[in-house]
């Protein structure tokens, strides 16, 4: 066989909005709206730079529910760029962009092959009319596919080196919807040489040997949980069919979760300086990429009182944003989660035979009936039909987090400033 190379990506979610951002500077709206496109453009640039033979996209190119026209036209533009360099594109649709009538209405350039949803198809990956490998794949026909699609794949024993392209949840990852569920043995049994998967947003190599099974993750993180580098895989197959792969980050805006302790910090300026130093470090670590930082402040210290003061956190965010939040390589401090506490020993307070002691004992070990009562007390908010659409009754874990926050609130409010 002839050696060849391809790029494997998935979960582009083009033009789908960033989630979890409570505030955005007007200057940042455009770069954020463009981020998914920019990341995809970088993938195409990568294809051209590495002179690959094909680009494999394993589903969720966009969020069909959003019906973004812009997204499809942009896709077409990029596919044309690939067509100009004779690079084939193989697409299977996933749960976010099932192959519906709406999808079908769009015509792509000839270098693009979209797999149908009825059955697993096999198409050749060609270079100058010579078949380098065979790509088998299947699209979702509807949003919710509960069938094990992997079982329908089978490598042609007489056929060339084979790639399976599928949007699936292997092994039932709890953090993702369990669509087209299958497990590793299902994939191994098919005899494929490479599995180009999609659906799981964190990139990972599921199987190192033959076949190599990879989730490339989404190339651009879109919510606070999707932190760290995001990108795609460049895969090289040599004449013996041996695979070498490389993860290449292409994200343009990176999410960061930063935890800082206020212990030992005396002055608000110390905190600001520490945060700014951290921002610079992140900037350096992420090779000057734009970033969104969610700060979590912890620890007990004298700064807690300052932070608890009304408007202080907003001021701090304001200063951080002013200094580094809106330039072309911005570091947007998205929010500050204040989990700090007073410089008091809660455990000692908890021991005390007084109201505060009672309060802290309750918060430390709420019994099931108290949890139920608390849950019920939150219902007021959810009696509003509209709010029910957006919010959920917190589960036990959520409730415990609320109790933890309430504990500090109680201390702050019951203890006078001079104590």
């Amino acid at each position, binding site marked *: 066989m002839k050696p060849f190379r391809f790029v494997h990506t998935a979960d582009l979610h083009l033009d789908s909005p*960033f989630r979890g*951002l*409570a505030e955005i500077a007007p200057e940042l709206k455009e770069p954020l709206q463009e981020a998914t496109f920019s990341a995809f453009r970088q993938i195409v640039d990568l294809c051209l730079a590495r002179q690959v033979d094909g680009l494999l996209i394993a589903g969720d190119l966009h969020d069909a529910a959003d019906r973004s*026209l812009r997204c499809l036209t942009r896709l077409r533009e990029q596919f044309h760029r690939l067509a100009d360099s004779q690079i084939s594109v193989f697409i299977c649709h996933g749960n976010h962009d099932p192959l519906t009538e709406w999808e079908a209405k769009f015509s792509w350039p000839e270098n693009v092959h979209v797999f149908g949803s009825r059955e697993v198809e096999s198409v050749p990956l060609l270079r100058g009319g010579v078949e380098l490998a065979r790509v088998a794949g299947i699209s979702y026909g509807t949003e919710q596919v509960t069938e094990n699609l992997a079982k329908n794949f089978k490598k042609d024993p007489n056929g060339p080196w084979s790639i399976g392209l599928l949007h699936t949840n292997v092994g039932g990852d709890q953090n993702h919807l369990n669509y087209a569920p299958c497990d590793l043995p299902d994939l191994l049994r098919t005899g494929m040489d490479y599995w180009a998967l999609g659906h799981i947003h964190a990139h990972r190599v599921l199987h190192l040997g033959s076949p190599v099974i990879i989730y490339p993750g989404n190339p651009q993180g879109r919510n606070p949980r999707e932190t760290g580098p995001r990108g795609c895989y460049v895969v090289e197959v040599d004449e013996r069919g041996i695979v070498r792969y490389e993860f290449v980050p292409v994200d343009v805006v990176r999410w960061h979760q930063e935890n800082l302790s206020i212990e030992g910090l005396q002055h608000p300026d110390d905190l600001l300086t520490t945060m700014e130093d951290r921002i610079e470090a992140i900037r350096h670590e992420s090779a000057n990429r734009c970033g969104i930082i969610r700060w979590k402040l912890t620890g007990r210290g004298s700064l807690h009182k300052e932070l608890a003061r009304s408007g202080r956190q907003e001021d701090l965010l304001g200063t951080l944003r002013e200094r580094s939040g809106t330039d072309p390589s911005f570091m947007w401090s998205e929010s500050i989660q204040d989990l700090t506490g007073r410089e008091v020993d809660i455990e000692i*307070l908890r021991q005390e035979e007084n109201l505060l002691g*009672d309060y802290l004992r309750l918060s430390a070990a709420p019994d099931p009936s108290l949890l139920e009562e608390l849950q019920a*007390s939150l219902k007021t908010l959810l009696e509003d039909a509209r709010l029910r659409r957006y*919010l959920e009754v917190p589960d036990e874990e959520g409730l415990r987090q609320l109790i933890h926050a*309430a504990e500090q609130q109680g201390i702050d409010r019951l*203890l006078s400033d001079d104590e």
Partner: protein
Amino acid sequence: MRLTSLAINGFGIFRDIDIQDLPPGLTLLEGHNEAGKSTLMAFIRAVLFGFESRKSAANRYEPLRGGKHGGALTLVTDEGQEYEVHRVEGGAHGRVTVFGPDGQRNGDDLLARLLHGTTKTLYQNVFAFGLTELQRLDTLQADEVSHHIYTAGMGTGSIPFSQVIQDLEDEQGQLFKPGGRKPIINVLLSKLDETERSIQQLQVIPDEYHKIRDQITLRDQEVRLLQERVEGATRRVDWVETLLKARPDWERIHALRHELAELLNIDTFPEGGVERLEEGQRALADLEQRRNEILTSIRQAEDKRTKLVPDSSLLEQEQAIDSLSEHREHFRKLLEGLPALRGRVHSRRQALDDLVGRLGSGWDDTRVAQFDSSIPMREQIRMCRDRLIAARLDLTDAAKGEEAASRARREKEAELDRLQRHLETMAELEPTGKIPLEDRELAFREWIQHYHHLELTRQHHQDIERLRAPLADQIASLDGEITLLERQIGLPTWMIAGVGLLFGALGGTAFYINEGFLGGALVACGVLSAGLLLWRRDQIHDDRQRRVDDISQQRQLLVGRTRGLREDSEVSEDEIRRVTEKMDALSLSTADKMWQSLQEVEEGLRSLETERRLVERRKDLEGRIQEQEEVLVRLLEEQESMGWPVAKAEEALQEVQAEWTALLKSLDLKESLTPDGVLEVLANLESAKVQLRDWQESVEELVRKDAEVESFHRQVNQVLERCQWRGVDLSEAAGMVLVLRKALEESLTMRRTLDQANDFLTQKRKEVAAVDAERDRLHGQVEHLLQAAGAQSPEDFRRRAAVHKRRVEMDREHRQLEVALTVHAGSAERFQELEDTLARTSSTDLEREYQVARVGERDGLVEALNQALQEKGRLEQQRQSLERNEQLSAVLLEHQTLLAQLDHQARQWAIRGVTRHLLDKARQIYERERQPAVLRQASEFFKVMTGGRYRRVIAPLGEIRLVVETKNGKKQGTDRLSRGTAEQLYLAMRLAFVREYAKHATTLPVVMDDILVNFDPNRAKAAIEVLKDMTSTHQILFFTCHPHVSQWFQDCVKDISVRSLTQGQ
């Protein structure tokens, strides 16, 4: 702290009252109405906390019966320290003086410290109260009281609990209200509704997009059709337009063709002919002018040359004159210097003659020059001088040496003589001992040794003798003792039998007097005593025998010792004898007499020492004499070995003197001269030599310079002669050289000018020849040009040139027009068609045709096409704008932002909700389990006072009110209690507070003014029980005017102190 006494000066109805020895526990003060009970309580409050202000005159208790307003209290602290607090008139609230246990006078500060900062209000409300204060609940609600009752134990510092709850509720309300509009979450919901509507609207776009795409396809087809038709019409219009535009050019072409046919046909003509002809003619004229100018300058130069004639003879002497000029200055200076030089020759001669004369007769220039005054010669003379001096010095030294040696010899001889005399005197003193000194000393020392040994031996002998003397006596006494012992046998047997018989007799007597038992006993005693005596006698006998043996043994020992001592004594006597003999022998052998004592021998030893010193001194003297003799001999030997130095020195001096005389002779100088004199002659001679050399040098210089001057003068006259000039004197020679020089310069200048004129003429003649050649060449060219143009003359040439030029211009225009029209037409064929058409049609016809094609057909089609394109463009724009529409992205982002905010705010709401709920739970626990200590204590007291009808007093959390709980657990507010029960509750609360206050601050005396009046007897007695209980920690003063109350107290409290008050007494 408690009160021990009160002393009132003047307070209300009281004047000069003393109440002493108040006990620590409960004191009952009885008194009828107006006896002054309330005044007394007011007095205590006033002394501790100040008089009431003058505004409330009634409570100020100004003295009604005279005396100074105020008085004193004596307080004893829990630690047993006594303080006296005085308050008298002064300031608004009186002036305080506190006397401490040390008698020190203090003021308010100490009082405040004693009271632990207790305020007047607190004291009045809780510690010293009457029925009026008791009945009022609000007196328990003053901050410092209520804190202890209502919030102590909350652990909440200064923030009221209810405020916390209220704040949380408010904050939740600001976040969200069901059905509200302004709270943050409600606002967010409205905004979310808006964005959702926008999203729905924007999501319709794709359908619209597909419609537009179809329309664009239709428009595309229409445009293509129209474009084809417009193209056809445009082609037609363009042709007519071309014809119209081409007509003027086409007409001009016709005209040109006609004119060309009429003009003289001159096809060829020299390129630039006219210009070239004119240029040739102009050049010829220029040449002619130049030639004339040159000829004129030649004539002028020739005229000038004839005037130039240089002096040739002078020029021939140029080199000689140059040389003379060069040396002229030197010559002049030489001439000037000659008189001075001659003067110097003369003066030097005179000085030389002086110096030669000073040397003496026989000296002339030759001898001066030849005399050897060189450095070696002078060195020789100086050496002779030094040797003469040295020889003379040697002579003097030798004479001195000889003198010193003879003096030394004489000194030594005198010393020797003195020593020998001394030796002789010593010989007279010397003893004449036969035995050598050393032997005698040895004998002395041996004798002394023997003497000491003898002394010791004698001592030893005496000691032995002293020991021996008593031994004989001891032996004699031991012998006596033995004899005595041997004589004593022991107790005689009769004595024993006697004792036996005595007892037998007594026994018999006893039998006899019918005392059988006594008799038996006496007989038994007798037998026993006899037995005992027998046993004792044997024992004594044995002892005595042993003693005899011991003494015999001792005696033998003593006899042994006596024998030993006798032997020792004999040995020492022998030793004494032997030593004495040795000593006698020694003394006889040494001194011919017997030495009698140690002193004598020691004296002998000392005289031996003197003798030895004498011998040593003599030996020393003899040694020195020998030494001196040796020195003397050595001196004589030395002198002899040295010979006689004076004679030698004289001989050497004579030798050197002879050498000097010889040298003088060799130099032909007087023999009387000393070396220093000769050196002086040489110094003068040296000066003369220098002067002679100087004189000779100046004479030579004069001769040389005279010759130089003469030579120069000769050369000048030679040159003058060659130039045929008159000769000059020596004095004029220098001036003449200058004249010659000037004349030569003039001739040289003239000769140079002449040469330049000749060169100029040669050059100009060459130029004339060149100009002539050029003129011929130009003539040839002009002729050639005329021939080429076929012209007869220059005028003909010019006419033909004008015709040729015109033809060329018309040809060019014609060609240009043809090209332009061909371009217009599009091709050569079309040009032909254009010419044909133009030839056929008139311009009016063309205009008409153009109107029809353009307006009638083409413009209409273009209009329709533009419209179609516009429409298509509009659709295309729409499509692009839909494709590029970022609105959806923006709204989706906005939507997500709002959701994030909603999430955040909902969380804030929830945190506050949870906090509130937990606080409420904690409140319940607190109310149930953690009421303040005051309330717990009050509950106890209240329970006792009400006989168990009520079991608890509760202060609902965060509220300033009380609730009581019956024994059945029923809760009710104070407003529903009967007057008596309420008063019991308030009393219980106060007493509980007093107790609590003691824990945190201090104990203060409690004063109560008839507060039990509304209590039924049972509850009153129960209350008194509580008060009794309180007295374990607090002093209580209870005022009453009711005898039954007094009686109850006395019934309940056994050791109660009761005092009566009557009308201010």
